[in-house]
């Protein structure tokens, strides 16, 4: 691979404090280096914006429920086909793209790393088969722990060390990256058609509470020194008044602070950021949540921005999906996973004229604008729940331009417009802040030290956008901003140009990141004995068939940590 010199672009590298400086970026052997020789290939980035490749912290792109959604929604695909080209395989898109299309569309936007945020451990093998097939991007997945029988039993017994060993074992077995919790205890209640609404409700038959589950896993996260925070989707999704549960959840594990790292990341906070008692009465809980995030260092959030379009709701939160199905009356899919978790899928359309949808749209933007520190709030649409990931450029245009927001505010449900705080917020994100929330902060939050920045030693994942910061006024020219972020001038992955002028010119294999915490042999032995005693009773597969071997991942990237047990 020849050396590469990206010359004269306006570089935005928040992790290294570079804010639109004109400078060169040198690439050698897939990494960013201080300098390269005279024979290096030169890419002239004059007049363009250079950023690290995008890092998406939460996007449902692979695995059992994504595939069930694809299978259930042929009508989603038929209107958005992707013909094959010389460099690309064919596929289909829209809300649940097929795997090849997923990789290409991310790359076209200058994204180079994406995490699948909700993997049922028993079906993790499926997730990895799909991740293997997604071209170009680096990836990883978060296995689900919040309704797991072994977890709940250890929590009940107060055996934190063994729980830590179990989580470590599971991360290796499922080749997962981080701890994910969805509706803790609620999906176990859904076994009997129920749900849990509050942190102190009791999980039927297990006699533990969501609070206990969340606290225990946050404690384990700290003990294992995992690279990311505990990634959590709180109880009460979509329920009016659920903002309080979000606040309670954020507060409940505050004592498990980690130095220089967050304890907890609350995802798609728009869905759990509602005040009010009933649907016609839904209000924004964004100010309260933002205040909390502003005042505390142990949490971060992502809003899960809503887009007014046809979407597919998909989440492990089975009961929440049935509740939404009963309102939407479209198509509903449910798939509980023995001893572990669940999944629910519903097709839906968000309309500007719909009061609740308009409020949701506004709440998400309020969260992004009221949280002051861009290192604490990340750009997501909780793809495909809020909107397809291809909408990110549109979200960027709303964040950089109040004018763009106001135009849309004039078109939404009038009562929502009156009740939202958004009309009165005129903050506008700078390009530097956009770079932060789409790559620098997310990489940092994930603990990916070689991603999200352009310093020496970083992976040469680079996005070049056709925006000249000195000449463009994002406030007025937000459409041009949107267009530029939708079609990267160049996307470079591990030093190779994969996208040129918004078209894929080369396909490469990305790596799958997973975490292996090193736990002491003694505690691991004790935990494995517990596991072996119950495995055949709990599962319908044998324990020997459960773990996924490393060779299963086409390109495995293991991260190790030294656990405190």
């Amino acid at each position: 691979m020849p050396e590469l010199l990206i010359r004269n672009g306006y570089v935005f590298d928040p992790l290294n404090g570079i804010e639109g400086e004109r400078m060169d970026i040198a690439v050698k052997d897939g990494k960013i280096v201080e300098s390269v020789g005279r024979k290096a290939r030169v890419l002239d980035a004059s007049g363009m914006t250079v950023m690290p490749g995008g890092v998406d912290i939460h996007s449902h792109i692979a695995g059992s429920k994504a595939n069930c959604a694809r299978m259930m929604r042929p009508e989603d695909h038929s209107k958005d086909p992707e013909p094959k080209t010389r460099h690309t395989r064919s596929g289909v898109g829209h809300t649940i793209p097929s795997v090849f299309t997923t990789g290409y569309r991310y790359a076209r936007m200058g994204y180079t790393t994406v995490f699948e945020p909700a993997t049922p451990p028993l079906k993790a093998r499926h997730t990895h088969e799909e991740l293997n097939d997604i071209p170009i991007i680096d990836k990883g997945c978060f296995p689900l722990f919040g309704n797991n029988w072994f977890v709940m039993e250890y929590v009940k017994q107060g055996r934190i060390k063994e729980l830590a060993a179990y989580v470590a074992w599971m991360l290796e077995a499922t080749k997962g990256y981080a701890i994910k919790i969805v509706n803790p205890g609620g999906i176990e209640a859904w076994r009997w058609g129920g749900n849990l609404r509050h942190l102190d409700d009791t999980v039927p038959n297990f006699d533990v509470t969501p609070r206990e589950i969340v606290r225990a896993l946050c404690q384990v996260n700290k003990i294992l020194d995992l690279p990311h925070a505990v990634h959590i989707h709180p109880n009460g999704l979509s329920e009016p008044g659920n903002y309080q549960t979000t606040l309670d959840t954020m507060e409940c594990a505050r004592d498990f602070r980690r130095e220089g790292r967050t304890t907890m990341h609350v995802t798609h906070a728009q869905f759990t950021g509602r005040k009010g008692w009933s649907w016609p009465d839904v209000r924004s809980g964004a100010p309260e949540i933002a205040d909390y995030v502003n005042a505390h260092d142990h949490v971060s959030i992502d809003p899960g921005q809503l887009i007014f379009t046809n979407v597919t709701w998909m989440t492990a939160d089975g009961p929440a999906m049935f509740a939404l199905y009963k309102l939407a009356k479209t198509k509903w899919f449910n798939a509980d996973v023995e001893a572990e978790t669940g999944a629910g899928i519903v097709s839906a359309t968000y309309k500007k004229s719909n009061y609740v949808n308009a409020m949701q749209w506004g709440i998400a933007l309020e969260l992004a604008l009221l949280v002051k520190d861009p290192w604490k709030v990340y750009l997501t649409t909780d793809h495909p729940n809020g909107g397809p990931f291809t909408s990110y450029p549109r979200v960027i245009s709303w964040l950089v331009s109040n004018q763009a927001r106001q135009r849309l505010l004039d078109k939404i449900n009038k009562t929502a417009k009156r009740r939202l705080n958004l009309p009165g917020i005129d903050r506008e994100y700078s390009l530097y802040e956009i770079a932060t929330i789409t790559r620098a902060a997310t990489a940092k939050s994930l603990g990916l030290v070689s991603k999200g920045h352009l310093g020496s030693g970083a992976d040469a994942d680079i996005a070049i956008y056709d925006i000249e910061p000195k000449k463009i006024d994002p406030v007025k020219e937000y459409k041009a901003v949107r267009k530029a972020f939708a079609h990267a001038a160049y996307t470079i992955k591990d030093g190779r140009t994969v996208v040129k002028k918004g078209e894929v010119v080369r396909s490469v294999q990305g790596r799958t990141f997973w975490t292996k915490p090193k736990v002491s042999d003694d505690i691991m032995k004790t935990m494995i004995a517990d596991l072996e005693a119950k495995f055949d009773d709990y599962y319908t597969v044998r324990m020997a068939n459960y773990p996924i071997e490393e060779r299963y991942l086409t390109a495995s990237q293991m991260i190790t940590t030294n656990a405190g047990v």
Partner: protein
Amino acid sequence: MDSVRNGCAISVSRFTTSDKSRLLKPLVRKGGKLRPTTFARAVDRAARILNNAKYPLLYGWSQTSCEAISKGIELAELVGGLIDNTTTSCHGPTILGVQDAGEATCTLGEIRHSADLVVYWGCNPVHSHPRHTNRYTIFSKGRFRKTRKDRKLIVVDVRKTDTAKLADRFIQVEPNGDYELLTALRTAINGEEIEQDTIAGVPVETVEEIANMMMECEFGALFFGLGLTMSAGKHRNTEAALALVRDLNYVTKFVIVPMRGWFNVTGANEVSTWQTGYPYAVDLTQGYPRFNPGDTSAIDAIARGEVDAALVVASDPVSHFPREAVKHLLKIPIIAVEPKRTPTSEAAEVVIPSAILGVEAAGTIYRIDGVALEARRVIAPPVGVRPDVEILDTMIKRVKKLGVKH
């Protein structure tokens, strides 16, 4: 293979007969007869046939691994063909039903742990899935249901099968009357009055009794098979069953699971769906995936005389397809990639012997409920016999070398 322990009748025979009727050498038709040739020549002939075809079909897949299926899709896209699997003649209607009604399902362990009511509708697991009742339903032991007494079994079928003999309640439905009976159950469950006295041969009082059993259980599981998918109504029958279970979820917890038959057919659906967006009957002739069973499905396309070449992988359509389709199939060049001598391989232009998955070749497979497992290799295949993955990979390389016409 000397003996197999712990297998059910069906799986044991897969191992113990693995050496019967084997194809051992690549064959190519010359002068009307199949003659032995080299692997390279057979692949070359196959590649040319597919490359020259204007509407080739790549069919089978359910007896191969996900890795092989992935290669199949790559090949179909390369040569511009239809790729379809045995779903098309089996549980295709189930998928079509899900595409309209959704599905409330779970992994099999959930049923073992929780189900106090089990319904088998139009299927006979005592014969088709001999371990089903032991592992997952009435004879299984779960966390919340420990004995047979903790569960009730309802069987609905057109005749009293061996599975029906195990039932607490057996409902005999008139042939082709399932849609009416499912609709009547929905009506009762939705609290509406049924005005008819009998529905598909079942008295309305019985319908109401069964509806009550379903509503009063704590966790019900409905399993269904070809009795629904292949009787009049097909995907509307499955849609009605899916809708029934969905309606029941307003009242109690209920799930539905199809009784799939063809080994890794679920895997074929999964791989096809994540790579093309569609689970079977995928048309890649125009450079992007299209899906419309009845148009893009194997049997229909063949029966209309449209297909001009067929690659058949681990399947025997000459034996299983309807006569109209077989008549045409026998007129076009067939490439058979297959472990055993079958009527399809006998009719082929090119035959490439392949290893048996789960016996001689490893690979990923999917259980009915979407749990992926790794099938292992237990013995070596006969000398010169390769796994499907390798055969297909070589074919892809050869087609690329020849230069695609499509």
